[in-house]
């Protein structure tokens, strides 16, 4: 059913393919993980680890965020999406770029194909930025959530450009310092600038909405925004030009920003009118709890703590895992089932509401599968982290199996939603007009 022309909501062919691609990327990620148990015993600069990170960051997380954002942006900003065509083209470039980049890293081919992949990704980020910024310009009112979202899009582009420069540096070697130095920059702009700011911006709007709570004030979000961006900017300048030992100080700024957001969520949730939490919200709060691990580890990786080399390498790996396979994956696994069912329901039933007895969004997917998805995820994650810390390939493999089960359950539910067909509806009968 086509949406009414007056709706701010974009067409379903703009949004839904992102969810489909992301689910399949998550399956691919967990299968690659099964074949990468040997990669977790040394330095993080390893072809297989680079593949896993980029499939997780681009194919899984960024892809899903793009799709969800095209749907949510009009709701948050109260206006139409600037261009559905741009969104579709960006989807193509992001998809192709991700697949090519993953292939290049896995086989460690650093030539022209990788150049094409990196360019394709940067083009996708530019188009995404144009779409987000132009949409924001149409918005009747400007809020702190808009600040978070627009800023995060800009950081995404910066991350992509740094990545492109590094890809060119593989073959031309023009950068002054060793490669991993820039990898740290690239990774942290991506993690704190793109993912963290975006999740806070969207989460501060959605989490209260799903809890039927309301924010008393957004002052804490302003603090959160300023602290995280300040920490990130200081870090970039220091890392590029000054090389001081102040990195933990910048980490403190970012962590304070995260805590400020947490306090905002806590205070807001005190006003909630819903006290029962569904599986999607439980998983979301699990994700927020999992954020504590990278918050602790960031101080170890940013300070010169004297740890045995083997353990330090493991901590670096766990730090990365705790961000991409921990916090970000967990929150996607939860929020997918708070957003996608509603989107599918809206497109399928909006014209029938009130005229027919329609099912509700929560009736469109399988809750038992979702429950087992949540369990197997947590299991897989804990085993993987334990396996990496103990440098034990069997435990890492068990963790990868947990992730594989999770990804298959998740994908089964997502495709059940995507392929939903409008059922036979029974009209309401009114008063004596009934048969």
């Amino acid at each position, binding site marked *: 059913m086509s949406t009414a022309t*007056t709706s701010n909501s974009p067409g379903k062919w703009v949004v839904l393919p992102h969810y489909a691609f992301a689910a399949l990327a998550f399956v691919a990620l967990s299968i690659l993980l099964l074949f990468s148990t040997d990669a977790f015993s040394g330095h993080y600069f390893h072809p297989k680890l680079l593949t896993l990170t980029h499939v997780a960051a681009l194919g899984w997380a960024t892809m899903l965020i793009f799709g969800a954002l095209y749907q949510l942006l009009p709701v948050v900003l109260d206006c139409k999406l600037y261009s559905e065509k741009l969104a579709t083209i960006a989807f193509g470039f992001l998809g192709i770029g991700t697949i090519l980049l993953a292939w290049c890293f896995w086989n460690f081919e650093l030539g022209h194909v990788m150049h094409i992949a990196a360019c394709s990704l940067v083009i996708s980020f530019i188009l995404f930025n144009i779409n987000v910024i132009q949409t924001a310009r149409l918005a009747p009112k400007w809020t702190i959530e808009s600040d978070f979202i627009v800023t995060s899009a800009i950081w995404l582009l910066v991350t992509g450009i740094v990545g492109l420069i590094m890809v060119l540096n593989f073959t031309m070697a023009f950068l002054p310092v060793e490669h991993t130095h820039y990898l740290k920059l690239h990774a942290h702009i991506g993690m704190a600038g793109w993912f963290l700011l975006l999740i806070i911006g969207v989460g501060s709007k959605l989490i209260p*909405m799903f809890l039927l709570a309301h924010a008393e004030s957004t002052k804490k979000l302003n603090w959160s925004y300023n602290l995280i961006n300040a920490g990130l900017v200081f870090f970039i300048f220091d890392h590029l030009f000054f090389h001081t030992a102040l990195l933990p100080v910048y980490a403190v700024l970012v962590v304070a920003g995260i805590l400020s957001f947490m306090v905002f969520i806590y205070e807001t949730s005190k006003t909630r009118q819903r006290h029962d939490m569904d599986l999607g919200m439980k998983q979301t709060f699990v994700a927020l709890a999992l954020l504590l691990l990278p918050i602790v580890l960031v101080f170890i990786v940013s300070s010169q703590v004297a740890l045995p080399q083997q353990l330090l390498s493991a901590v670096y790996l766990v730090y990365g895992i705790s961000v991409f396979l921990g916090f970000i994956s967990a929150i996607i696994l939860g929020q997918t089932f708070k957003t996608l069912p509603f989107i599918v329901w809206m497109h399928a039933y909006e014209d029938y509401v*009130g005229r027919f007895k329609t099912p509700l969004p929560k009736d469109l997917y399988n809750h038992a599968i979702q429950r087992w998805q949540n369990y197997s995820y947590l299991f897989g994650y804990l085993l993987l982290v334990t396996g990496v810390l103990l440098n034990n390939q069997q435990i890492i493999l068990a963790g990868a199996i947990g992730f594989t089960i999770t990804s298959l359950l998740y994908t089964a539910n997502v495709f059940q939603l995507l392929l939903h067909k409008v059922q036979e509806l029974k009209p309401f009968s009114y008063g004596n007009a009934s048969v």
Partner: protein
Amino acid sequence: MQIAANTKISALIKENPAAIDAIASINRYFEKLRNPVLRKILASRVTIADAARIGGCDIEKFYEKLEPLGFIASESKTRNTKKPIIMQTPETQTKTMPAYLAQLPAQHIVALDVCEDIASGNDPFLKIMNAVDGIGENNALLIINTFEPTPLIAILKKKGYSFWTDVKNANLVHTYFWKDAGTNNAPEQTIKPETGSFDDVLAGFAGKVRRIDVRAMEMPQPMVTILGELEILPQQEALYVVHKRVPQFLLPQLEERGFNITIKEVGPNQVDLLIYK
């Protein structure tokens, strides 16, 4: 009960079941209303004006028949600023097939016969809507029915479809729908709630207001509840909704169903909506 041209037949029947017989006695056409199946399908989607046109009689005829039952006709609705959807009237109905249809090859016309469904008591609405989704840009859909599908025409006109009805006889009507490539580039407009007039409109309904609070409901329950309430909202009454925010997804639905809305921002977490015909 006050009635007007845009009163739904279902509202009449709900108020007083005797209305069925009264309307059925207008002319042979309305005998169909005695069939409970047809009544179920049509009554909640057809207004007095639509019915009069389908049956080829005057609205006044309806008032005449209904007044003895205690219905009061009020034809002076000055409050409603929104123009009702203008339907073809029998006088302006063209007997000649529009040029677009005439040049369309037969294989581009998808026919859907719903007489069977109507006769056996299945509501063909869903079937038709699915067929409409499937016709694409270069085809036309032909609905074969026992009466002119007025409610359907209203919905599809909103969606930018052109239509042409060809009345074969009293029990056979062919209705064609197609996407008019020439006219669908009208600028898309979002429904613009009038904010300043909230209190004036509220006063205009003088207490005839049904009030619901949807703040403690989870998405999409507010929308489901509001649209459900509107289906059974008596004519001349308004629905007063206490909501947390301006409901983005509801606005297009209200417009499609011919409702007006005024909005009052009460605070950062409360907006009051007044929805009326």
